[in-house]
């Protein structure tokens, strides 16, 4: 496998992603083969929408999406490609430069091919053994923990706002982050553990939002109660408070009349049904002064059952009181039916956008924001690491000076070593700090540049892209952070306290955990693509019959030439 091909592929991906990267980034507009349009600034969406032919490109695309979905971080896929591209470029440069300056041609092809996996293995070793220590010692002290009590406070909002900054148009960031904060606050009481309430929100998100196209974004709002996205099959009758509700999964009973009579005896005035009811059932319900909503989706029913605590009826003959829930109000709204379940006080999100594409984009962004928060506040898997963020800061005040990561062994080999909720100012702070912290021997024994040097250079390419519109700002940011590191007496002058918003805070906040996992994923991906030496093209039975049509025709011609 030629490294130049690899670099070419990754650079092509990078070129697409760059357009939507950073604070000055814009959107990417797709038209799918179905003619459906999609707008996105999400790296995963952009990459998965591309039809990549080369097997290597797919091998970058696939781990990325798998990583995204299994982690559910909802963040970082653009940085993933950027880091990967610059890391691979760095490795390629290092191998082509060669150990001795006298050899102008650098490595021979064979040596080159051997050098790349060597780097890859060393990188993986570095990332899996030392990286978390390095971050804990050199980066975490400059961050702080956002508590979950304060989603109304500055830092919680900032975290969300900076996430939306990477995902939607700038002018709507603040509006959407306010809306999401509000939503999170409304659902917070559900449980004391924030992680669980995020989990609940993320699981039930399909039932909790309503997309409405044709209105400006500023019409998006929260609505009290649960919205069922179906219209009444019977005319909506005014429902007095404390009226009852039954909901059905199926009506199997033939004698509808007796069912309706039984329902009436419970004082039921609203029926929710998962399936479509017959005309006769609708007419009978109308005559009995019951409102009926048909074809309620599975997700909405599940949420309703959770919220109200009723048991769905599956057979018409056994209606009990446990199937009946009390609602405080029910009314038709804009596009659906709105319920107020009296036991709890839920709220639903109505998201508006001028076109469907935009509405979808906002929905994705909010859903991913909840995912991201979930990752940040994921409980630690080991109970050993009990040091809170506050003590970390005081302990490592000196440790950050001498830069001896070996002193912090307890942090090694754990899945999640950082305090839940640990964040750091955005705008390259993490990358600056970590690249500085990486051990920096000029070259190792073979005369090759060290892997930590390669990683540090790759990391710096991220802030370089953030400030790509003005290189001056890049230097300014770097100097500012470096001067803070050199002056550890006041490590908090980033403006982490709300009273003194520093120069960096307007760039927002990002999660340390997400960043750490991102780097791990990048290194793993780079290692796996560098270890590949040949691509074998197999033919399925279908292809042997018609050899003219191969799916990867372009890729195969390239490789045949190589052979």
């Amino acid at each position, binding site marked *: 496998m030629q490294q130049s091909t690899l670099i070419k592929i990754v650079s092509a991906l990078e070129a697409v992603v760059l357009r939507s990267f950073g604070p000055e980034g814009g959107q990417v507009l797709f*038209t799918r083969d179905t003619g459906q349009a999609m707008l996105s600034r999400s790296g995963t969406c952009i990459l998965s929408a591309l039809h990549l032919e080369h097997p290597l490109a797919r091998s970058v695309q696939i781990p990325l999406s798998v990583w995204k979905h299994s982690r559910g971080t909802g963040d970082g896929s653009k940085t993933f490609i950027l880091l990967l591209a610059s890391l691979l470029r760095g490795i390629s440069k290092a191998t082509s430069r060669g150990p001795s300056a006298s050899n102008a041609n650098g490595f021979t092809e064979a040596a080159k091919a051997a050098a790349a996996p060597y780097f890859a293995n060393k990188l993986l070793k570095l990332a899996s053994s030392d990286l978390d220590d390095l971050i804990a010692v050199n980066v975490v002290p400059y961050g702080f923990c956002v508590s979950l009590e304060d989603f109304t406070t500055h830092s919680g909002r900032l975290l969300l706002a900076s996430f939306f900054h990477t995902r939607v148009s700038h002018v709507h960031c603040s509006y959407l982050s306010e809306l999401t904060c509000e939503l999170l606050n409304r659902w917070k009481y559900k449980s004391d553990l924030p992680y669980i309430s995020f989990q609940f929100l993320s699981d039930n998100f399909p039932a909790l939002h309503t997309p409405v196209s044709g209105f400006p974004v500023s019409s998006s709002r929260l609505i009290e109660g649960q919205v069922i996205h179906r219209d009444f099959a019977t005319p909506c009758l005014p429902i007095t408070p404390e009226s009852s509700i039954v909901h059905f999964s199926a009506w199997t009973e033939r004698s509808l009349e007796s069912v309706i009579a039984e329902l009436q005896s419970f004082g039921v005035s609203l029926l929710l049904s998962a399936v479509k009811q017959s005309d006769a059932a609708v007419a009978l319900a109308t005559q009995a002064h019951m409102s009926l909503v048909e074809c309620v989706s599975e997700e909405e029913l599940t949420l309703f059952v959770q919220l109200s605590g009723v048991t769905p009826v599956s057979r018409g003959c056994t209606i009990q009181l446990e199937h009946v829930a009390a609602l405080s109000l029910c009314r038709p709204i804009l596009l659906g039916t709105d319920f107020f379940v009296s036991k709890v006080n839920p709220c639903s999100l109505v998201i508006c956008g001028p076109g469907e594409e935009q509405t979808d984009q906002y929905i994705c962004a909010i859903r991913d924001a909840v995912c991201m928060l979930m990752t940040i506040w994921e409980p630690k898997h080991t109970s050993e690491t009990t040091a809170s963020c506050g003590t970390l800061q005081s302990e490592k005040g000196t440790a950050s000076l001498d830069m001896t990561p070996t002193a912090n062994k307890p942090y090694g080999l754990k899945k999640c070593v950082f305090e839940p909720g640990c964040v750091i100012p955005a705008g390259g702070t993490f990358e600056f700090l970590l690249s500085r912290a990486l051990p920096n021997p000029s070259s190792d024994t073979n005369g090759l540049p060290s892997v930590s040097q390669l990683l540090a250079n790759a990391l710096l390419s991220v802030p370089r892209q953030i400030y790509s519109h003005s290189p001056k700002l890049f230097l300014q940011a770097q100097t500012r952070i470096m001067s803070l590191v050199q002056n550890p007496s006041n490590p908090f002058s980033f403006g982490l306290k709300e009273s003194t918003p520093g120069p960096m805070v307007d760039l927002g906040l990002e999660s340390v955990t997400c960043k750490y996992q991102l780097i791990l994923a990048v290194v793993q991906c780079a290692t796996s693509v560098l270890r590949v030496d040949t691509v074998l093209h197999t033919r399925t039975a279908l292809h042997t019959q018609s050899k003219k049509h191969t799916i990867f025709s372009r890729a195969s011609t390239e490789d045949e030439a190589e052979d």
Partner: protein
Amino acid sequence: MSRVEKKAPSVCTDLPLNNAEVCAKLHLMKELLKSCYGPRGRLKHVRNNIGGRVTTSSASSVILPALYSSQPLLNLIKSSVLNHISRFSDCGLFAGVFCLSLLEQARRHELRESLAIKVNKHCLSLCTSYLQRDDCACRVKIDFSSSQNLMTLAGSIVSSKPACLLTEAEKLHISTMAVRAFLQTIPCSSPGPVTLGQTVTVTVRGLPVLDSAMFPGLLVEMHDDFNQTDSSSEPLRTVLFSTSLAGDLAELGDGTIEADPDLDTDLQILDQLLELGKQLVEDEVRLCVCQKVIHPVLQQYLRSHGVVVMERLGMALMEPLGMLSGTQPVATLHARIPSTAYGRVKNLSTKQFGNKTMLHLQPDGEAAVCTAVLCHRNETMLDELKVAWRKTEDVLRLTLKEPSALLGGGCTETHLSAYVKHKGQQEASETAAGLRCSPAEFLLGVKVFCRSLDMVARSLEHDGGSSAMDLNHAHHWTVSADAAGEDMAGGLGLCGCGLVENSSTEWTFLNTEYAEFCPAPLLGDSCRKPTVLDSFTAKVNALQVAVETANLALDVRYVIKDEN
């Protein structure tokens, strides 16, 4: 999978707004929409590639769905405007022209995209907050105690559809009808939440427009003869079936019936139907209406007992009929029909319109259902008239939400433009600091926004004339091509909306530079009434949608098109 096709690579466009081809397409679309705008807009023939029917229209709701572009950016703008139309019916062309002008002007003035987005957003919030203010000089309160403004609003919408080819008298007739129908569908005295009634439209081809009429109650086209047997003035007891009475077992689905071979199921069902008929006769039902088909035997039975039978009513008329007569649709054949399911119709009569004979069902008492019969000379014009009618209906209903209207004839646009320019100049330095740009850049952005608003006002003129604005109230005036060179103070007459008379002395052409000024509100001398009004709700939303869509298009940096 019988065939594996090679997937074509996606077509990518980097920075689409810097691409000359894309810009040319955007320009073309702008020119197309512009040429349709306003009461003197040009018409478009829409015809598909296999020689289908030709539609003549200037309405965005007809033209936009017919446009197809291979450029995703255009489709994005199109779908935003169409979504707006689906919610508000009105101001689709306004949204389209304004959005495309914003894009074009931003490019012409070489404004950075990210800056243009911020300034557009800022200007939009200036406009919306101004329009909501009490002292907004381009907003007119709608007073429901007089029909004056409602008539003007309806008239403006009917005249904005030149493809209807209506004379002044016909326009007046149609807009009067629309206002009457609107008022008819508001229930007079019902406590609690109000449910608005419905207007059913029936179209008749070949009759003059002035024969169009509005009737309380429902007009239902008749499939067979109707013999009015008795003419007693008593209301008729009515039953409404939503299920088929033809004796079929449609609801069985995929199930099977096991029956004794000797049993004749058809006869059994017919017996059941006749049983039902007997109950109807016993309950003194005089009108039996069915959404679907009624078995001929049952029909015959009912007719022989003096019941008027109507079948195949169709889904669309079920709800209005239920509203009119107060019946509850019956869907069961086996159960006894409860007395509450019956309703009443006051009177039945036949009406003749051209070749159509219709049965007129009059409500017993107050019912918010009425029927509009729209007539026009040929089908194309009739279609357009129907579009105009529906739009008028929707716009009039929107006034219930927000009882305001905006001055029409381009005056709102010029007024807003002057206001934004003035406000922008005043607050240039502090706003620029807030948006993190220089005051000069900010003012350039404001200029782009104002120019685009002016462009919409200028689009109203299609006959080679030019557009002007007075420097006092900032209303819009049209200068005809032959009068342009002469002294403008002489013969400009009234402004676009008809509120300001030729009193101001200072003018400026809309595409020229002028010093900013604060548009003065019209003081107490407003004995004049505006002659052209636009829907407030629709226009405010269109303004927002246009700016948001333009911002979105400015934010698109990369286009990927799947060619499969």
